[in-house]
C-alpha cells in the first residue's frame, strides 16, 4: 500500500538551503574538527573556565556571533538558518563555548530590546563579550513563563530577589538577561556582570562536564529602570528564546548523534570477539543502523527547522519537531554507544559517556522530547 501525507503537509514546512548556509557548514566542519580534537575536549573538562579563549577569539573574528544580528547593529544580517550548521559542527566535536547562549541573548534583545539597549549590547556581543540567560528556577519547570523571581521598585530603579539556575558561562559574562516578575507580570531584565557580586554565583556540577553553568542568587541586586526590556514584548521574547535555543540544541544534538554513531561504528569495525569483528553480528549491526536512521530523520527535521525558523506557525512546529526528534535520536545513539563498547563503555575514558551525558544535558534544558511533543499536540490537533 502506498502512502500520502494528506493535508498534514499543509501544517508543515519544507526544506531548502542558502549558499551562505552551505559555506558556513563547510568552514565550521573544518574549524571545529581542527580546533576541538577529543584530547583537547578532555583537557578543557579539567579547566576552570571550560573553553579556550584563543579559540573563542577566532570564532569572534570569523564573525559567527553576528550572523543573525542585523548589519545596522554590527552583525552580518543573515538568520538563525545560517547559525544552525555551526552549532551542529560544535556539537559534533563537543566544542564548548558560550556561542549558543550569546546567540540566543542577541535574539532576546532583538525581540524585546529598545534602540538604546540593542545599540549598546548587540555590537558588544558581536565583538565577543559574553551574554547569557538566567531563566530557569529551582522549581525545574520548562515553562519559561513560570517565574518566581521578582523585581521591586527601590533604590534608583529595581531591587531583584530570587534564584536562577543553569546560567551558563555566567562567570565570564558581561551581560545576564534574567526573567523576573513585576507586579505579577513577567519581564526581562538586563543585568551587567559588574552588578553581580562573585558571591552570588555558585558553579553548578552539571551532567555535561564540557560545559560550565552557574546558580545565580538575585537577592539584593539593583538594576536601573532602563535595564528592563519592553513589557509588551516579553512573551514574544520568551518564545523567541525558547525556539532559538531549541533550534541550536537540535543542531548540536544532531552533531553529537553523528559522532556517537561514527565512534561506535569504528569500534564495531575493529573489535573482535569469538574470532569475528563484532560488527558482523546483527545484534549490534541492526540497532546501530536504527540509530543511524533516527539520526538522519532528526537531521532532516533540524534542517527544516533552520529553514523555516521565524515563519508564523510552521516555524514553531518545525523547531519543536526538531528538538523532540534530536532528543530521541541522540539519547538512543549515545545509550547504545555505551552498551556496545562493553566494559570499556562503562569507563570514564570511553567517549561514549561524553555523548550520553551531553544528550542528558540537552534534554534537561528547554524541554525534552515529551515536552515538545505535548506542545506539538496542541499545535497539530
Amino acid at each position: 500500500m502506498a502512502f500520502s501525507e494528506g493535508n498534514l503537509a499543509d501544517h508543515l514546512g519544507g526544506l531548502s538551503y542558502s549558499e551562505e548556509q552551505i559555506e558556513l557548514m563547510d568552514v565550521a566542519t573544518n574549524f571545529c574538527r581542527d580546533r576541538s580534537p577529543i584530547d583537547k575536549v578532555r583537557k578543557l573538562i579539567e579547566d576552570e573556565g571550560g573553553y579556550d579563549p584563543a579559540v573563542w577569539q577566532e570564532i569572534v573574528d570569523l564573525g559567527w556571533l553576528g550572523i543573525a544580528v542585523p548589519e545596522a547593529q554590527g552583525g552580518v544580517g543573515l538568520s538563525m538558518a545560517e547559525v544552525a550548521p555551526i552549532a551542529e559542527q560544535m556539537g559534533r566535536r563537543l566544542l564548548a563555548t558560550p556561542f549558543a547562549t550569546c546567540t540566543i541573548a542577541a535574539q532576546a534583545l532583538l525581540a524585546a530590546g529598545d534602540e538604546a539597549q540593542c545599540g549598546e549590547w548587540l555590537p558588544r556581543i558581536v565583538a565577543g563579550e559574553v551574554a547569557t540567560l538566567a531563566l530557569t528556577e529551582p522549581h525545574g519547570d520548562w515553562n519559561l513563563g513560570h517565574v518566581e523571581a521578582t523585581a521591586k521598585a527601590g533604590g534608583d530603579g529595581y531591587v531583584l530577589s530570587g534564584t536562577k539556575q543553569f546560567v551558563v558561562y555566567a562567570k565570564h559574562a558581561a551581560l545576564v538577561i534574567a526573567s523576573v516578575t513585576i507586579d505579577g507580570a513577567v519581564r526581562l531584565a538586563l543585568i551587567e556582570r559588574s552588578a553581580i557580586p562573585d558571591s552570588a554565583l555558585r558553579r553548578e556540577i552539571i551532567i555535561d562536564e564540557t560545559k560550565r553553568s552557574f546558580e545565580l542568587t538575585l537577592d539584593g541586586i539593583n538594576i536601573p529602570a532602563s535595564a528592563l526590556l519592553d513589557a509588551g514584548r516579553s512573551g514574544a521574547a520568551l518564545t523567541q528564546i525558547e525556539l532559538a535555543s531549541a533550534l541550536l540544541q537540535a543542531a548540536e544534538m544532531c552533531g553529537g548523534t553523528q559522532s556517537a554513531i561514527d565512534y561506535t561504528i569504528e569500534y564495531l569495525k575493529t573489535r573482535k570477539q569469538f574470532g569475528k569483528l563484532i560488527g558482523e553480528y546483527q545484534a549490534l549491526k541492526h540497532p546501530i543502523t536504527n540509530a543511524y536512521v533516527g539520526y538522519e530523520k532528526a537531521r532532516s527535521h533540524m534542517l527544516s527547522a533552520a529553514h523555516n525558523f521565524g515563519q508564523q506557525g510552521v516555524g514553531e512546529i518545525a523547531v519543536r519537531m526538531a528538538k523532540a526528534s534530536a532528543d530521541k535520536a541522540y539519547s538512543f545513539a549515545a545509550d547504545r554507544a555505551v552498551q556496545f563498547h562493553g566494559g570499556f563503555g562503562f569507563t570514564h575514558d570511553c567517549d561514549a559517556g561524553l555523548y550520553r551525558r551531553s544528550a542528558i544535558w540537552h534534554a534537561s534544558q528547554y524541554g525534552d522530547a515529551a515536552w515538545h511533543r505535548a506542545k506539538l499536540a496542541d499545535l497539530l490537533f
Partner: protein
Amino acid sequence: MSSRPTPAELADYEAQADAWFRENTPKDPGFMLPLTFMEVSTDQQFDFLCAWQRKVYEAGYLGASWPKEYGGGGLHPDFQRIATKVMKKYDGPIMLNAIGIGWAGPLIMDIGSEEEKKKYIKGMLNAEDIWCQGFSEPENGSDLGNAQLKAVRDGDEYVLNGSKIWTSLGDRAKYMILLARTSNEGPNKYAGLSFFLSPMHAPGIETRRIKKLTGEYGFVQCFFTDARIPAECLMGNEGDGWQIAMKTLEYERGAKVNLAGGYFLKELDAMGVVELARQSQRGGKPLLDDPVMKDRMVDFMMDIQALNLNNQRRRMGPLVQDRPMGLALMNKLARTEMIRELTEFSLSFQGTRGGYYVDDPCAVDNGYWHRSYLNSFSATIGGGTSEIQRNIIAEHVLGLPKGR
C-alpha cells in the same frame, strides 16, 4: 512525440478530465474492492476493475501519451500526468493491469520489436490482456539472479520446467514476463538467464492460488511441467535476461516515469488516522483527549514529516555530504516500517470494535484498518525484508563488515 502543450491547452484538458471523472468515477460498488492490484480475490472484483480500466482507457485517460499506432492517445506526457492527477483527486478504483501497463508495457515500448508493440500494447491498456510477472521462485526470493526455472530450446519452441511464486494476478493473466534459465554455462549465474513474454494459457502451466494473511487471494504459485511456448516469446537474445529484468525493476521501483498513467495502489492518508482517532471514544471522552494517545500520535506525525523531508533532502547534494546514499537506501525500510506501525496503532483506537474484521457489519470502516495493517507486511517483507534492508544500510552506508 507531440510538441509541448501550452498552459491553456493543459487547462482545457484538465477541465475536461475533471468533468469526466466527476461524472464517471464509480461509487461504492456494494462489495469490498482490493487496496492494490495484488489482492484481487473474486470474479466480481476482477470484472469490476477490468470494466473500470477499460472505461478510463476508452475515454482517453490511460495510455494517453503512448503512440496511436499501438493503441495509445498520441498526446504529450503532460496530458497523461494531468489525467492521473484528476483520477487521484476523485479517488477512483485502482488500475488493475499494473504489470502490463506499469512494467511490461514500458519495457516493450523501450526495447521491444515492432511486432511486440503491435501485439501487446493495446490489450494491456483496455484490460483485455492481463499480465503477471514470473521472477521469484520458491527457493530463490531475494536471490533473484539464482532463478532456476528451465527453458530449453526445442525447434520452434521452448520447453519450460520449474515453478514461480508470489505471482500476483497469475490466475487471471494471459501473459507473463518470465525470467528463466536457458543455460548453466557462462562466467556467472546471471549469464544463463533469458527473458520471455510468455503465454499463460498453455498445456503444462498450472496455477494454485495462495490465501494471504488478510484472508484475501491475489497471488499464486505457477507450475511449469514440460510446458511449450513459441520460440518468438524470447525477448532479445538468450542471456539478456538479467539485464532486461533489472530494467523492469526500474519501472517497478518507480525510478522511471510511469508514462501509461493511472495508479495501482490505494494511498493511506496520514490524516485519516487522526480522523479515526478523533471519532473514537475512550472513557466517554474523545480519544485524542488522552495525553498518552496524543503523544504517540504526535510521534507518528513527526515520523511522517521526517520521511517527507528525507525525500526532499536526498536530492540536495550539500545536505547529504557525509553519506550521500544513506537517505536513498533507508527509504524503503523507514517508509514500510512506519506504515506498519501506524496501521497497527490505528487498531488500538477502536476499543472492543478492534475485535471485528472485514465484512462484519459492525467493523469500523469495514475493517479497512485491520486489512491495511495485515497488508503492510507485504511491503516490509516483499522487495527485500526489513532485516535485509538493515544489512544493506549497515554494509553499504555505514561500512560495517558482512556477516551473518
